[in-house]
Every structure is written in structure tokens, then in C-alpha cells.
């Protein structure tokens, strides 16, 4: 990472005199005791802009939101929201905090009524807005349902409705889509795009960088300061690097060679391993590719297949933070059981033998078929992704696979056992990280780790070393006596992961392990997961974040309790019918509404200033698309085919499966 490139100060937003500045901050500081959370930030957000705030945990994003929302005073600096102080602007500000702010024992309508009452919205206006927003969020059929019975995505949409009911001019959203599935997430962002097109100013923080791509402008925050501001395209260009997707049959060996080279070599800036490919960042396209091929030849590795791709915002984020020295370090796990020994200790375990297997697994709750005839095979040394929308049956499947829940029918095979999945011996070989609640909030970090190493029978000689490894990996050395309940969500997840692997499991279940974890930490997370897989651990993981699902070797997509598609990331993307197009037009929101009228709405989504459109029969449909746009006096700047992302594939599979029902 010694490739020098200029970190030019971000170009200040050129303020078009015709567009008003909705929010401006100058020299903003916030101090808590000795801790400086925000250290002098400046920005100006135009009216109607969708502005993203990204940064690692503890960068000062939430503090900034508190100040903009008028619930906290800045220590120094000036903030103006719509021409007044944030406190005075509270009546025109909608603020969605990280915690759910709903009353779970009230219905959707009652929740909205309550907020409208607080905000003194007149009754007729309330009815009209309620109908309008519930329809926009696709919640209008569920008015009487209790908020507690909604899925995570629906809850977040309802929270947004509550924030919108007083018709704010400024909307502040602090990580609104954590724990929300990709389909709901895309719908949520479609709503945001529409609101912003109607003139609402929206500031949103998100740990998901594919979401940040949908913002007009993005500010990258780190250590209380803004490192860079610009449109997603500007940020990508400013990186000055190119991304090569490298596919080879010798993934692990290739990665080792290239990773070593990236430490010393000027050409190769970064290497990241995915489920069936490597992403390599190079400064110069030709020289980089040549160097790469040369290195592989030198190490007698097979020639790779190389594809050029655009760098992602995640590349920008990770690279910038590395330059700041902020990327968490990777420490190798202190293994006490060598690879060979492991193979001997459990006779059934060889690299290609099956660790987890399910045949025709079903589960019925009452008359609800939660899981229907699911077949899964996970081998030792493999990372297997189980993906699906909220309520698709992933967690139920995992619970059946690890013996926490009995199957209604079907067979489970786990680590050589078929009948008794609850034996202590078997469980000693399994690691499990449940969704959210793994650690005891009322114990300190080190007490939690001591507990898990003790209960899994980690020999006392090795405990200290392993606990130290978790603390070092999480960057929590010196803070181990802090109560776990006080840790921010992302950190807690990292400690929880550490706690679940202390005993070096052969089989690891991870249920949404990276929910709420920032991109750099997430990358470290996956490095660890990969490390375990290479040492022979079978890993089954669920996630809502499809960019990270690319790290899985194989995966299954679940829809409504059934497996709708299966394969490696590349296979799944390749199996998608049709083609994805990027459409750049002058009025994207109008174009989106227009196209949604003529095509299935899920085929169209807005990404910042452009549209993504899925066409099943491009040869016949492109012409129609062009003429439709031009006939409505839209100026078509460009229309080009782009590769499907895994998220596009996922949404296509889910929507097609729903249509076929």
C-alpha cells in the first residue's frame, strides 16, 4: 500500500445559486469529557439532496446526527438547518435513530397516530398523509397489525413513516437498514430517492457501501473528521486505482502470492479474496496486469482469468482508512490443534467430506410452513452462505441444522452424527453465533470470553493466549474490563465472533455475524472466517449484505421456506436471465416512475443520478425503452449493459419466485 497518490482536498461542493443550502456546518466540534468525538467538520447539503455519511464505528457519525437533530449541543462551531439553529428546526426535522423507536404493542395505525398527536398534525392532514406514506412503503394493507409482529424491514419502513408524518423538510437517518433484508432495503432506498426528488433533504448514515452508491454525495468520516466528500463517481475516480477481478482454480495460493506482493510491490495495491475470485487493485492497468501474470508464472500457478471492473465505494473506503492506519490488523488465530492433528482427531473429517447436510428438511409451525424440503451440503473447509429475505426461513433452518429445533420432517447430518445432535461431544466441536444475543451485557468483555472458553473446556493454559487474541483482533486491548453492554453494536459482534471460535470448532454457524459492523471491520471479519475455512472448518453463514456474500464459496437463496437457487457467486450471477442496464437520464426520478409503470417495478432502481434496469429480452426491449424515454422528453445520456451484482441476482430470484407462485 505504498502507491503514492495525491489526496487532494475534496472539491468543495459548488453551490448552484439557484439551489438553496438546507444544512450547513462550519468547524463543528463535540467533546465528551476528554474524548473528542467530532473534530471540526464542514459541509453544506443542498435542498433535496440525498447525502450519505459513511465511516467506521466510532467515527463520530451518530454524534453528528445528534447535533443536526438538535438533541445535543455542539461544543464549538456553527450548524444551520433551514436558516435556523438545529433546536429551532426540530419541528421541520424528522430523525430516525439507530434504535427502533416504535411501540411494539401498538398497531401501525396507532403508532402513526401517536406520533401525529405528539407533532400536532391536524386530523384531516394526518389521514391523507398516513394513506400516502403507507402506500408508498407498501404497508397500507397492514394498518391493524401490531408493530411487534412486523419483520425488521417493515419495522424500519414504519419508523420512516413515523418520521415523515409531520412532513419534515429535513430527514436524518442513522443506519436505518441494519438487519433489513436486500429486497426491503432496495424498496426503502427507492422511497428515499422519491422523497429526495420531491425536495426533501435527506442525510443518511450507513455501513452498507452499496447503499451509499445510491446517494447523491457521500462524506467519508474518520476519527471525528471528514476525509473526503464527493459524488460516488468522484470518490471512485479519486482513488486512482483499477479493480481486476481475478478468477483461478488456485485461489488460496494465488492470494498468498499476491498479498505478499502487495506489501512490497508498487503495482499491486490491494488484494481481497472472495468466494470464487480475487479482487486486485492496481494503479496502472497494463503494468499491474502484467505484473500479476508474471508473479503467478513465477510461482508456477495456473494462468488466471482477469476481468476489468470499476472500483467500488468499498475499495475507496478501505483504501482511505488504510492510509489513515485505521484498518484493524489481522492477527493469526493461536491454534492449539495443528491441521494434521485435527484430521486425525476426527476421523470423518477430511477436506472434502461433508460436515453439515440436510435432506428434505421441513418445519411447520401451526399451519405455517416455515421451511419446506430444504437440501443443504456443507463440506469441511467451505464457506457456505444461506441467504434470504426476512422471514424466508434461514434462522429456522440453522436452528434445525444445529439441533436447537426439531425438524418436522427430513434428515440432518452434523459432524458425523445423525440421530443425537445434542451430545456434549458434538457440541464441543461446533461454534455458534446467534443473531444479536451472544454475549452477557452484565459481564465485562474479558469475563464473557473467560466464560465461553471455560464452558467449551479450552485448556486453561491456552485460555489467556486466545482471549488476548480476541482482544487484539477487536482492538480492545486495555478495555477488557468494560461492561459488554456499553460496547457499540459493531464491536459487540466482533467480540461475539471471537467468543464463538475460542475452542477452534470444526463446524461454525454464523447467523448474521456482521450486522451493524462497519466495512473495514467487516473485511477483517471475513479474513478471519476465511482463515478458519482454510484450516478445515466448515462454515455456514447468513447475511443480508450481498456484497459480502460474494465471499462464500457456495450459497443457497431461500424464498418463502424453499431454496430458490444454489451455486457459487459467479454461477448465480451468470444464471440470471436477461441483462442489467445502466441508464443515465436527465430526470432519473421521473424516468423511474415512468419505467415502473411499464415494467415490473422491481426491475428499476435509482442509484444516485442513474437508473439500473433489468431487461429479460434486451434485444427486443432496449429499443422500446429508448423510445419510451424519448417520447416523454427525457434526455438519454447513456445506456449501457453492466454486470449483475449478487444483489441484483438475489432480487431477481426472489421476485421471479414470488411471481410464479
Amino acid at each position, binding site marked *: 500500500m505504498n502507491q503514492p497518490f495525491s489526496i487532494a482536498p475534496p472539491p468543495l461542493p459548488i453551490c448552484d445559486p439557484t439551489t438553496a443550502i438546507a444544512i450547513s456546518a462550519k468547524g463543528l466540534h463535540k467533546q465528551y469529557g476528554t474524548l473528542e468525538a467530532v473534530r471540526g467538520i464542514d459541509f453544506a447539503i443542498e435542498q433535496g439532496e440525498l447525502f450519505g455519511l459513511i465511516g467506521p464505528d466510532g467515527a463520530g457519525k451518530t454524534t453528528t446526527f445528534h447535533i443536526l437533530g438538535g438533541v445535543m449541543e455542539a461544543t464549538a462551531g456553527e450548524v444551520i438547518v433551514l436558516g435556523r439553529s438545529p433546536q429551532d428546526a426540530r419541528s421541520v426535522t424528522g430523525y430516525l435513530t439507530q434504535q427502533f423507536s416504535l411501540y411494539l404493542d401498538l398497531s401501525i395505525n396507532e403508532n402513526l397516530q401517536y406520533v401525529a398527536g405528539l407533532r400536532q398534525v391536524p386530523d384531516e392532514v394526518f389521514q391523507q398523509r398516513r394513506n400516502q406514506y403507507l402506500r408508498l412503503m407498501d404497508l397500507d394493507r397492514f394498518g391493524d397489525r401490531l408493530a411487534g409482529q412486523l419483520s425488521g424491514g417493515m419495522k424500519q419502513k414504519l419508523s420512516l413513516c413515523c418520521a415523515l408524518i409531520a412532513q419534515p423538510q429535513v430527514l436524518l437517518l442513522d443506519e436505518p437498514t441494519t438487519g433489513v433484508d436486500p429486497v426491503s432495503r432496495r424498496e426503502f432506498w427507492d422511497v428515499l430517492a422519491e422523497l429526495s426528488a420531491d425536495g426533501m433533504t435527506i442525510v443518511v448514515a450507513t455501513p452498507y457501501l452499496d447503499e451509499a452508491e445510491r446517494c447523491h454525495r457521500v462524506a467519508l468520516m474518520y476519527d471525528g473528521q471528514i476525509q473526503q466528500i464527493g459524488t460516488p463517481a468522484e470518490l471512485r475516480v479519486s482513488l486512482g486505482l483499477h479493480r481486476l477481478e481475478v478468477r483461478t482454480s488456485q485461489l488460496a495460493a494465488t492470494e498468498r502470492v499476491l498479498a505478499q506482493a502487495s506489501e512490497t510491490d508498487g503495482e499491486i495495491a490491494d488484494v481481497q479474496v472472495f468466494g470464487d475470485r480475487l479482487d486486485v487493485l492496481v494503479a496502472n492497468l497494463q503494468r499491474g496486469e502484467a505484473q500479476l501474470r508474471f508473479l503467478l508464472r513465477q510461482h508456477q500457478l495456473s494462468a488466471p482469468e482477469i476481468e476489468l471492473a470499476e472500483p467500488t465505494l468499498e475499495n475507496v473506503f478501505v483504501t482511505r482508512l488504510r492510509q489513515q492506519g485505521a484498518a484493524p490488523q489481522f492477527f493469526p488465530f493461536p491454534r492449539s490443534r495443528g491441521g494434521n492433528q485435527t484430521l486425525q482427531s476426527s476421523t470423518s473429517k477430511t477436506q472434502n467430506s461433508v460436515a453439515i447436510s440436510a435432506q428434505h428438511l421441513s418445519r411447520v409451525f401451526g399451519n405455517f410452513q416455515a421451511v419446506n424440503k430444504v437440501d443443504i451440503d456443507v463440506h469441511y473447509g467451505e464457506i457456505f452462505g444461506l441467504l434470504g429475505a426476512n422471514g424466508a426461513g434461514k434462522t429456522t433452518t440453522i*436452528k434445525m441444522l*444445529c439441533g*436447537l*429445533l*426439531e425438524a418436522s420432517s427430513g434428515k440432518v447430518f452434523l459432524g458425523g452424527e445423525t440421530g443425537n445432535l445434542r451430545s*456434549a*461431544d458434538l*457440541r*464441543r466441536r*461446533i461454534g*455458534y*453465533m*446467534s443473531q*444479536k*444475543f*451472544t*454475549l*452477557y*451485557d*452484565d*459481564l465485562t468483555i474479558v*469475563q464473557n470470553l*473467560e*466464560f*465461553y*472458553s*471455560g*464452558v*467449551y*473446556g479450552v*485448556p*486453561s493454559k491456552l485460555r489467556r493466549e486466545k482471549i488476548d487474541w480476541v482482544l487484539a483482533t477487536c482492538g480492545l486491548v486495555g478495555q477488557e474490563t468494560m461492561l459488554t453492554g456499553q460496547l457499540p453494536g459493531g464491536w459487540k459482534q466482533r467480540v461475539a465472533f471471537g467468543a464463538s471460535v475460542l475452542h477452534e470448532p470444526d463446524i461454525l454457524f454464523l447467523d448474521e455475524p456482521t450486522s451493524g459492523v462497519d466495512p473495514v471491520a467487516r473485511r477483517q471479519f471475513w479474513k478471519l472466517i476465511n482463515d478458519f475455512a482454510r484450516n478445515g472448518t466448515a462454515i455456514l453463514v447468513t447475511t443480508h449484505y450481498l456484497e459480502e456474500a460474494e465471499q462464500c464459496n457456495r450459497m443457497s437463496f431461500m424464498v418463502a421456506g424453499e431454496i430458490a437457487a444454489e451455486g457459487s457467486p459467479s454461477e448465480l450471477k451468470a444464471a440470471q436471465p436477461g441483462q442489467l442496464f445502466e441508464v443515465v437520464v436527465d430526470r432519473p426520478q421521473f424516468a423511474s416512475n415512468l419505467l415502473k409503470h411499464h415494467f415490473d417495478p422491481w426491475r428499476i432502481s435509482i442509484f444516485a443520478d442513474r437508473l439500473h434496469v433489468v431487461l429479460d429480452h434486451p434485444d427486443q426491449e432496449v429499443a422500446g425503452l429508448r423510445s419510451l424515454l424519448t417520447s416523454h422528453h427525457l434526455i438519454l445520456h447513456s445506456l449501457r449493459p453492466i454486470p449483475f451484482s449478487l444483489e441484483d441476482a438475489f432480487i431477481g430470484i426472489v421476485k421471479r419466485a414470488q411471481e410464479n407462485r
Partner: protein
Amino acid sequence: MRRFLNTPFFALVLKEIRQILRNKQLLFLLIIPPIVQLLLYGSALNPDVQNLKLGVLDYANVYESRELVAALTENGIFAAQTPPVSEAELSDRVETGKLAVGVVIPPEFPRRLAAGNAEIQILIDAVNANTAGIANSYLSQIVLQYNRRLKTTQTALPVQAQVLFLYNPGLTSSWFFIPGVMGLVLTLIGTITSAIAVVKEKDVGTLEQLLMTPAASWEILLAKVVPLFFLLMGDVLLALTLGRVVFRVPFQGNFLLLMVLSACYLFVTISIGALLGTIYQQQQQVLLTAFFINMPMVETSGAIAPVESMPPFFQTLSLLNPMRHYIAIVRGILLKGVGLEALWMHALALVVFAIVLVTISTRQFRNQLS
């Protein structure tokens, strides 16, 4: 020892102890309510009848009638109030609760006394049936003695009762209450704390994670119960000390026997709580149900009111109440100084209850998976 320190069970116990030490609320619950309840029941709840407000309407107002009034008030059970002037006022004051007892001595009292058939009228406010009953028997006794004094010439009565009060010679009612309240406190606190300990893990969501560890379900349950058990034994000692120091309750019997049987009873209360904890999902539900179960247990146990004064049906039913047996044991050991030879029935009942409840709650805890 080293080997034990490496077992999952030790890790579980250590974790529970650390959680308890950080749980100020639980420590408060274990210390303050027992003290308050013992002090309250021991001193404030006193069924002795004293200073009943007496109004005498003495129409006769002669030496004999004044003697009678003096006899009524001389031992402190009745306190004379300003005499009413009419029967209407008397009944009015009884009605409004200003007088508990009204006595009317009619004008012909001296004349009929001479004839040997005098009558006086007594009105008792019987809203509190217990007090009224006691007042009645005191009044009857006082009048009887008064009669005897009048008939000095009469020879001694054929039968003279010589009453000896055993075990509680001073008739101190707190001696009766302290063992009862001990049972009450252990029942309330034992069930609630263990129910919370079991349900909490479910409530916050960590139980699933715990069930995936190699620890067996009995280890998980036992680890939760052991620290509580010791803390509750501490409560037993606390109650005994308070009884001894503040109320001077004697300790006639065998200390070790009492501790062993108390331990037995703690298994009963802890199992009841654990059972509740396995049935419900939230702390709130468990707390409400615990109160619902504890109230009838306390009421039919003889902790406050004697079992003997209950209707026969409930007396039989109360045999199924482990708390009744425990209280009988504590009273027997503390006040009577008897041992197993007298208490074996109660002890046996407690042991059976403990075994049955521990078995059920362990099985229930294991089965709550699916």
C-alpha cells in the same frame, strides 16, 4: 480441584456469581425485604387485644355498678372513654367506630342484683370478628369473676383449672410469628429469584447460545441454583439472628437439623421458581405468576393465622403445602426444642416435595428447547 476449575460447570457457576454480584437489585431483594418483613410482622402485627375503647352508660350509678366498671377497665384490655349520655349516643358511637364495646347498666341493676338476676347489655363492634370474639370472652371472664367476688359466702368451685403455658410462657405472639415469617420470606424470595434467574437468559436471548455449548442442561440449571441456594441459606441465618436478637425468640432445638431441613425447603422453593421460569418467556410474566402462587401458599401455611382455625377441608388441603410443613418444623425446633422424633412426618413431607419438584423442574428445563 484443578480439574474442577476446568469444567464447564465451574465456568457456569463463576458466570452466575459474577452476574449476581453485579446485580444490585437481586442483592437488595435478598437482604432488605427479609429484614423489613420480620420486623414488621414481629412487632406491628400483634393479634393481642388491648385498649379496646369502652363506653359505659351507667343508669344505675351505684357502688356495685361502679365496681363493675372498675373491674372491666382495671387490666388494660378495655379503656374507658367519656361516658355516653343516652343509648342513642352509645349505639351511634359504636356505629361510627369511636367505641369498640358499649355497656349499658340499666337503672334497675341494684334492685335485680339483690334479687340475684341482674342483667347488663353489651354491644360489641364485630366488624373484626377475631377481636370481637376475644373481647367477648374477656368480658365474660371479668363478669364471672365479678360474680364470684359478690358471692363471697360461696364455697370454692368444684373444678379449678390450673393452666401452665408451655413453650411460650410469656404468651409473646412474636415468637409465633417469627418462624412463620421465616417461611414466608424464604418462599417469596426463593421462588422469585430463581424464577428470574431461569427466565432472564430467555428474556435477553442468550439461552440459545448457552444451549449450543457442551454444558448439559442440568449443569446450566444447577449453576443457576447453587449460588442462589447459598445466598438464601444466608437469609435463613439472617432471620434466625434477627429473631434471636430483636425478639428474643428462643432456640431450644438442634441447629444442624434446622439448617438441613431449611436446605431441603430451599430446594422446594427454588424448584417452584425454576419451574415457573421454564414456563414463561418474560420476567414480568414470571413475577406476576409467582405472586399468584405465593399468596395462597402463605395463607394456607399457618404462617400468620393458625392452621387449626381453618375449615377442615382447607386443613386437609394445607397438607399439600410444603410451607406448612416447614413452618411446623421451625416452630418445633425453635420453640419446643423437639427433634426428628416429633417432626419426622413434616421432614419426610419436605423431602418428598423437594425430590418431586427438583425432578419436574429439571425435566422441564431440558424440554423447553422445542
